[in-house]
């Protein structure tokens, strides 16, 4: 049954990927990529990778989709629809590389083979010793946090750096721009407000010099 699930889910996955590629509507494509990610998380679950499934579900189906939707909200919803033909050169290249890779897989150990080279080095040691050396029952956690602690430190730093990059690109100084303030104030034109304020300030300034100081102080303090 698990094998059948594996086969079917992979089939669904490839069909979904095809569908995403053929879609013109970016919004629909983003939604379908959420579905794609849910499917792949199911597959990880079938292949015993519980932690990976956990992460993929949390990131791919939730956060990635939300971020992409936010991007679409700021940019465009539709792809330009004039070109519908298939590009020959990339297609040919993909076929060539793909057939080479498939030729390469012929030498790979079959799915689930316990004698595969991957399972003979490192992994048995982790599985046998990690309980005695590190402690937690979850082997993935003990490898992630203890044996490969450097790696995780690097990962955390990468996430941190990504935030720094996005802050540089999108952050700027963190307050609302005038045009957006206009949005929020239901179409009250802030420029008009500003003009009126300037006039009023001028009116305050003109009669006496004392008013000038007060208005200037207030403006400066704000």
């Amino acid at each position, binding site marked *: *049954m698990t094998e059948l699930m594996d086969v079917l889910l992979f089939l669904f996955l490839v069909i979904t990927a095809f569908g995403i590629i053929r879609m013109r509507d970016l919004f629909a494509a983003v939604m379908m990529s959420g579905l794609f990610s*849910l499917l792949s998380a199911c597959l990880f679950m079938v292949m015993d990778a519980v932690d990976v499934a956990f992460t993929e579900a949390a990131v791919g189906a939730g956060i990635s989709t939300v971020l992409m939707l936010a991007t679409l909200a700021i940019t465009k919803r539709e792809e330009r629809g004039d070109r519908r033909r298939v590009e020959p050169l990339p297609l040919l290249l993909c076929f060539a590389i793909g057939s080479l890779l498939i030729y390469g897989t012929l030498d790979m150990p079959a799915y689930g083979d316990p004698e595969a080279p991957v399972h003979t080095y490192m992994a048995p040691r982790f599985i046998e010793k990690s309980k005695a050396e590190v402690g937690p029952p979850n082997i993935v956690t003990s490898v992630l946090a203890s044996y490969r602690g450097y790696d995780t430190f690097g990962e955390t730093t990468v996430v941190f750096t990504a935030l720094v990059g996005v802050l540089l690109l999108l952050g700027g100084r963190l307050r609302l721009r005038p045009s957006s303030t206009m949005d929020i104030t239901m179409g009250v034109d802030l420029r008009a407000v500003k003009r009126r304020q300037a006039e009023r300030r001028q009116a305050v300034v003109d009669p006496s010099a004392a008013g000038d100081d007060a208005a200037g102080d207030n403006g400066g303090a704000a």
Partner: protein
Amino acid sequence: MFAVAMLAILICMALLIARAFTGPTVFDRILAINSFGTKTVLLIAVLGFMTGRPDFLDLALVYALMNFIGTIAVLRFTRYGDLSAFDRVLEAEHHTDPNWP
């Protein structure tokens, strides 16, 4: 007997994927994908019992949660074309409604 339920879930998934692709309107797609998320939750639960280790139900909870968030985000997008411009609506309500928290 878990196999029967699993098979039903897989069939339902296939049907939902078909609807998500053919769906003429956006809302059909959203509906299909939302239902699909629920099916994945069920798949995790049944799979745990099938393989004899039903202690991974945290995952099912996460799937349900993320699916809900995704659906809400998509609906926000279709409703307002934006994930944040609906602030306007909320603010307006805030000004007109004295009972608003």
